[in-house]
């Protein structure tokens, strides 16, 4: 909004899903910088590289990924003192209870189940953006 933008880190392995997010952002004229990592390991590297500012960052996390899946990544994240306080919103297709429970146990800020339809996804992103914008301002 005023230079203090929220950086969105998208941890997602599926290209189409990434495209979905990008399109959703475009649709809503969301200009937040979007960083993409295709699995947990890459995401950690990305965060530690400093490419993403410490504060004002939101991690959208997919759970099913190769090498290091979302839950594992979360564990690492929460174990890392530097990054443990990062806000994470899980964005996944899985609605398995055990995933939900585990995610919340690792202090995610939200758990969103990816619908298949695009429009809902767009709305979802818009809502997210708005929410985080508001929250950040407080």
């Amino acid at each position: 909004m005023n230079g203090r933008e929220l950086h969105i880190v998208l941890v997602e392995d599926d290209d189409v899903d990434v495209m979905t997010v990008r399109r959703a952002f475009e649709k809503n004229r969301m200009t937040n910088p979007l960083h993409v990592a295709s699995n947990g390991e890459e995401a950690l590297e990305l965060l530690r590289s400093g490419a993403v500012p410490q504060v004002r960052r939101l991690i959208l996390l997919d759970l099913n990924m190769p090498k290091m899946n979302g839950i594992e990544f979360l564990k690492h994240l929460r174990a890392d003192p530097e990054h443990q306080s990062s806000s994470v919103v899980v964005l996944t297709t899985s609605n398995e209870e055990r995933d939900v429970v585990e995610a919340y146990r690792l202090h995610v800020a939200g758990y969103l189940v990816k619908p298949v339809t695009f429009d809902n996804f767009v709305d979802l992103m818009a809502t997210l953006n708005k929410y985080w914008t508001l929250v950040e301002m407080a």
Partner: protein
Amino acid sequence: MRPTYTPPTPIAELSGQALQRELERLRILASRDRGLLDAILEHSPHGIIICDAAGRFVVQNRASERIWAGSSSATKVSDWNVYRAFHEDGTPFRPEDWAMAECMRTKRPVAAREYRIQRFDDSFGYLLGSSAPIIGREGELEGAMSVFADITQLKESEQQNQRLQSELGRRVQELEQIAARAALLQRVTAAIGNASTAEDIARVVTTFGSEVFGADASLCLVRHDDKLRLMASVGVHDDELASYREVDIQASVPMARVARENKVLWLSSPAEIAAEAPMSPALLGGHGLEAKLILPLQDEGVVFGVLAYWFRHAPALLSVRREFAETVALQCAQGLKRARLFERERRARRSLQAQQRRLSILAQASKALSTLDSREALAQLARSVVPELTDWCAIDEKTPDGQIRRLILEHRDPAKLAFAAELDRRYPPSIEDPHGVANVLRTGEREWAPDISDELLVTMTKDAEHLRLARALDLRSYAVVPLLAHGRVFGALTLVTEGERRLSKEDLEFAEELGSRAALALENARLYETAEAARNHLHDIFMRAPAAIAIVRGCDLQVELANQPYEQLMGQGPLTGRPILEREQLRVHPVVAPLLELAVTRTPKIIRELCVPGSNGSDRYFHVIYQPLRSPSDQDDGVTTFAFDITEQVVARQRIERLMAEVASREARLKALVAATAAIVWTANARGEVIETSDTWLEFTGQSEAEYQNGGFLNAIHPDDRAKTMELWTAAVGAAAPYGAEYRLRRRDGTHAYMLARGMPVFGADGTVQEYVGCNVDITGLRQAEEAARGHAEALQTLNDLGMVISAELDRDKCVQAVTDAVTTLTGASFGAFFYNVLDEQGGSYMLYTLSGVPREAFSKFPMPRNTAVFAPTFTGQGVVRVDDITKDPRYGHNSPHYGMPKGHLPVRSYLAAPVTSRSGEVIGGLFLGHDRASVFDARAETLAVGLAAQAAVALDNARLFAEAQRLIRALESTNRDLDQFAYVTSHDLKAPLRGISSLAAWIEEDLGVTLAEGTREKLQLLRGRVKRLEALIQGILDYSRAGRTDGKREMLTLDKVVAESVELVSPPTAAEVAVGEMPIVVVERVALQQVFMNLIGNALKHARREDARINVSATELGSMIECRVSDNGPGIAPAYHERIWGIFQTLEARDRVENTGIGLSIVKKIVEGRGGRVWVESTEGQGATFCFTWPRVEDRRVV
């Protein structure tokens, strides 16, 4: 003939001849007239005297001479007094008094006047004459004429007449007077007659007297002893009256004198009055009296009063009047006498009436008092005297503690009653009061105050207020009489009057009479009440007497009196007053029959014991006494029957007899019993010394009598037991308590037998111990049996424990060890071993073993027992092998390599082996027991071993099954996990690309936007549709794989709740209706059942093909299952497809028409069948469909 008088023709007018003629005529006339006149004068009967103006008599006719008996001439008027006349008053006439003189004076005639004359012969007479003046022509007086007639005779006759008349008048008057007097007398008499009281009479007399006699005042006094008392007076001033109220009969006043002397006194002048009564005061208001008339009132010579009449002006007391007065006095006297008599009579009558009234009251009171309700009687008594005799009546009684209690208070006016009650409440009477009831109660004397003076009121009241109130009651007189009974004062009767009424002496006596009657009546009432109470009491006692009593009299034996027990005994209802003989049942009644006998034989008093048969075999017995009654004349008058129910005694007696017989028989039996059971019977005295001999003891122990007595019995007892036995015996004797001991007693043959010794103290009537009686029982066998039983019990316990262990313990090895230990212990083996087969992972079997009684090392070196002759039976499961000494058994020692036991093997002589066979018949293993001694194992041990082996088999089976189950469970869990993982991964990984495809297709459409051709768009739509379908199918597979595998716990649910939730989750459209019927309660896993319902209901809604879908869900219990039905009003399903629809991915419509995975029903089927249920459909095309399934009502605790 009247002299004619022709008016003279005036002379002047006449001439000579005429004159002459006239004169001649006149002379003729004149002579004629003269002649007439002379005739008249001569013959007139009347005397005529004519005089001239000087009074000289001109003419006096013959009549006049006759009348006057002479005549005299008179030349002047003053001479006329020769003619003598008198005025009325006797004064002589003066000449000018004559009428003639008067008329000459007045020149007017004087009409007829009467004169009383004295004739010239001195006789007297009367004249009636008139005089007229003669007036000349010029009016001058010429003379007078007087014409008179002798009316002497007339007068005399007139006078005579007058005299007669006056006489007549006088007589008439007299008669009138007499008549008046008579009438007056009559009136007086009548008035007197009407007057009833003396006062009235007196009043009458005085009033009349005044009238009659014209008296100004009259008084009537009546004699009372020595005094004259004023009864009535008229005309006397009040202040003077005072002195006449009472006159002493000896006083020197006229009245007294008259009374004393019985003479009429007539004082006709003040002088006489003064002479008679110089002291009499000035009367009549200061005016003096002129006359007094005092008459005595007497009857038969006795003066009883005086009548006095006073006159201001003395009347002429004619004798007639006097007589009259006397008559009046007499009348009065008689009247007074009569009045007195009448008065007396009336008083007497009144008194009589009063007396009669009193008597009637008394009679009424007596009648009232004749009621036995004393309270009522008193009330009635009080009511009978109030208000007739008195105004107040009160009855008080003396309470036992000496206080006054008011029983009755009566007055006509209830307000006054209330007032009096209030007064009593405020100032309650106390027994200390000096007057009234208290006084009477204390002294027993009556109290009478005929006139309550104010002072008396003051003394009787307690304070000023009390006095005021008492005064307000206006009580005038009272009488209080005591109520006495047997000389004791128990109450008081009070009468009080108000106003004018006073209580006289008669009233007092009457009160006493009443009081005494009341007292008597009360006493009677009380006595009666007491008597009545006593009578009632007696009657009660009679009626409730424990015996049946009846009195009969007469030849027909009429029941005079029968009490209730008697009537009950007869059982014929009430009997009193009826003849006994009237009823057949009575006559033949056993209690009645002797009556007849008595009546006939006349014996004195019969006593019988009778039996009265009861209705249901319960006979009753009676001790009956028949007592003849003797009347006062010593005649036999009847019979009294007393029947005492002695059934109980008789029954008791009978029972005692029976008991005694029983006792006798029991005693015999006891004796026999004792003889049968007890080995020994003995006795000891109260001090515990054995004195009497005991044959049985001697027989048993072989001791002699001498050895036995004086404590010698101890010697037969085992030495170890002697001390204890003696201790117990001494203690028991000391405490007079039962004795019991066990000891070994030496038999005759020297062996010891276990004896149970028991002794009981025998108490006498005084409670002290008379002796001890005892018996000894041989319990050797018992002891032995006990031992055996104990052994059995132990074994059972062990077996039981073992059983519990086995059933609880699923660990095979532990089970087996337990069994081995148990069997070794129980059989008494020194060691035991259990060899058993197990299957390894590969399915091969091998042998394990447990040991008991020896450590494992003892056998570790040795190989497994093999199929030798000894072991074969066991391992082949043939049967139990029990050998007393294995080393001597023919089967032993034939097998290599050891040919017997291996070296180092524990020595075994006794051998017991049992196979352990599973339920399937397979030999699982064998139990081997050994003992180094021979013949240790008996049949019991064998049985034990077999039993234990069986238990071991069961345990092993269970353990095996359990292990198997565990293994399967683990495998299943593992599979499930794999499946879950697979499903999860699959769904995610399969769905991801689908998502991508869908999104890309959408983006392509978007990107191309309007440039997109319609066909292309359509294709893209189709593309996305297919993607969706694929996703649905994938989800379906996932669901299917997961279906039925929830691990929720069972809950007790009402099915309708489950169904309702399912319906909600399905969210039917508003037009659709899902009806849920009554559902049973189940204990199931909710989620699974819900899934089934959701699928079925969802299906019904999806395939309804109508807005108003109607779905009915119902469930019924079917034994251990429930049957659920979901029916809809959809298109229905043709029977051809009833099976196919349950298959996975099966749809009845092309997916392009209805998007349907076709998974739902297969899921339902999987879940239901997984639970052990069944699914099916009932439907025909066009008739809707009903999907049914069964489900267990209570699910097992299954781990799936």
